[in-house]
């Protein structure tokens, strides 16, 4: 299996305090991984290390078999798109289309090819009809989808979203999550997705959930495996998704992990 990201023996300290030591994580190409942990657990630091925005003291990071070094950092970054938490901090263009164009200009895309690429990217995230709007007139969820389009236009192999929904209202959050599910459907194995979050309902959408705390991998598995560990999640300042917490409180529980849709189905047939 091709590894999109391979982290080996990573060591990184912050403020003389060791954050990561001997940290290992492999992410398969095409996987959707939710990286979860409470505020300050090190998950955003990890994203910055992968992008080469921070430099590890020891250990290796490979992105699609290319070792991250001072020489390769720009090439490695070209494979990764990043969407940050605050939608207002990542706009440069006067219009939505200009904003998507900015990234394309940076990689010297022919201007004749640009309109098509911009339209494609905006269509994927459902923001095509907003292309002439000024970014500040958009809602938070719309801004994050434009940020995602700007990243998509560059055709990265990996997209990392660092708490990209944390500042959004429930509606904005839902549209961004729907967009991610659509992306995953459309690009399948061509796109590796890493979502950094502390919202467990979001994490259930991923193929794999990795819980980190104090730079340690606490849990790593499918949503079914991770969300059967209620106690460990609580000890690390996290909670179960709503449906799993509900199932925990039922006298008669389903005999296997169920996501929300499955639990609803199970409960409704139970009573008939």
């Amino acid at each position, binding site marked *: 299996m091709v590894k999109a990201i391979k982290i080996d023996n990573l060591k990184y300290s912050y*403020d003389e305090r060791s954050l990561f030591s001997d940290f290992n994580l492999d992410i398969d190409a095409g996987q959707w991984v939710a990286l979860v*942990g*409470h*505020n*300050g657990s090190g998950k955003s630091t990890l994203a910055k290390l992968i992008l080469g925005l921070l430099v590890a003291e020891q250990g290796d990071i490979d992105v699609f078999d290319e070792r991250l070094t001072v020489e390769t950092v720009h090439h490695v970054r070209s494979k990764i798109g990043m969407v940050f*938490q605050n939608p207002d901090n990542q706009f440069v263009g006067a219009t939505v289309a200009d904003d998507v164009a900015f990234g394309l200009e940076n990689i010297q895309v022919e201007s004749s090819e640009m309109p098509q690429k911009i339209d494609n990217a905006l269509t994927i995230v459902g923001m095509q009809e907003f292309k002439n709007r000024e970014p500040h007139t958009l*809602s*938070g969820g719309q801004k994050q989808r434009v940020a995602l389009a700007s990243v998509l236009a560059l055709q990265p192999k990996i997209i990392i979203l660092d*708490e990209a929904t*944390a*500042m959004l*209202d*429930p*509606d*904005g959050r839902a549209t961004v999550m729907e967009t991610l599910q659509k992306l995953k459907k459309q690009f399948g194995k061509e796109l590796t997705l890493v979502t950094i979050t*502390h919202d*467990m309902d979001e994490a259930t959408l991923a193929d794999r959930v990795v819980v980190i705390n104090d730079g340690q991998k606490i849990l790593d598995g499918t949503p079914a495996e991770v969300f059967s560990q209620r106690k460990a999640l609580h000890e690390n*300042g*996290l*909670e179960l998704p*709503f*449906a799993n*917490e*509900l199932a925990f*409180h*039922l*006298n*008669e529980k389903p005999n296997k992990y169920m996501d*929300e849709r499955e639990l*609803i*189905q199970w*409960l*409704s047939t139970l*009573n*008939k």
Partner: protein
Amino acid sequence: MAINFEQVNFSYGAGTTLAQPILHDINVTIPDGQVTAIIGQTGSGKSTFIQHLNGLLKPTTGRVVIDDFVLTSDLKEKNLTSLRARVGMVFQFPENQLFANTVLEDVMYAPINFGYAKADAEFAAKTALKQVNVSEELWDKSPFELSGGQMRRVAMAGTLASNPDIIVLDEPAAGLDPKGQKELLAIVRGLKEAGKLVVFISHQMDHVIAVADHVIVMHDGGVVAEGTPVEIFNKDLVWFKTVALDLPKAGQFAEQLRQKGHILRHRPLLLTELATMLNEEKRHE
């Protein structure tokens, strides 16, 4: 010490051709000694509404009566100082406003501006930091070394330090992890127990259920409903669609069950309530 909105209208650029009406005909009472939640979709006027509570905005017509203070359009800026001392405002993501070298200096900034002597300001700041559970070993640290949840609480302490009677919070728990959210809701409850009138904006209906005594629902710049959380969250589903609001998660779950033909006796608002109802059903079969 209740707050009364009487026939309040607000427009940006009032009196010009570009006047943009935001709030319409607001008549509402925010009760004393309680926690009031303001809910409504993005753009419904919540932030404009709360900015009338400490005179950051003044009503274009009508008046806001805060205890014995009357806020009207013709009030001069210099006359707002006494109101600002009584009403503390914590904005969204207040940690973005931290600036001082140490946590303690940051929290002392507001009381010093309100004319406290340095020693008094320090005492007030320490009291406020304890109130929001920021432990003493952090007081001499740079606020920028703290975690997100800690920074949020330090920023809140900055508002609490001048001991306002009324505390207004815009989305106090947004962006925090589950533990940080719980801590913040506990602080809101603590403020009420300390006798404060608390007003907060939230998009998280589960937070509203958890701490609010009273709920004001805004839509298109008007107040469309008010009542206890139980009254509000038992309204008709069609109404929730028109005001573009969600039910608390337990209520949403029950709705999805209903669509599958599994009908519960009434709408649960808490997870534990939903679990109890489902467990009792089994017992009665």
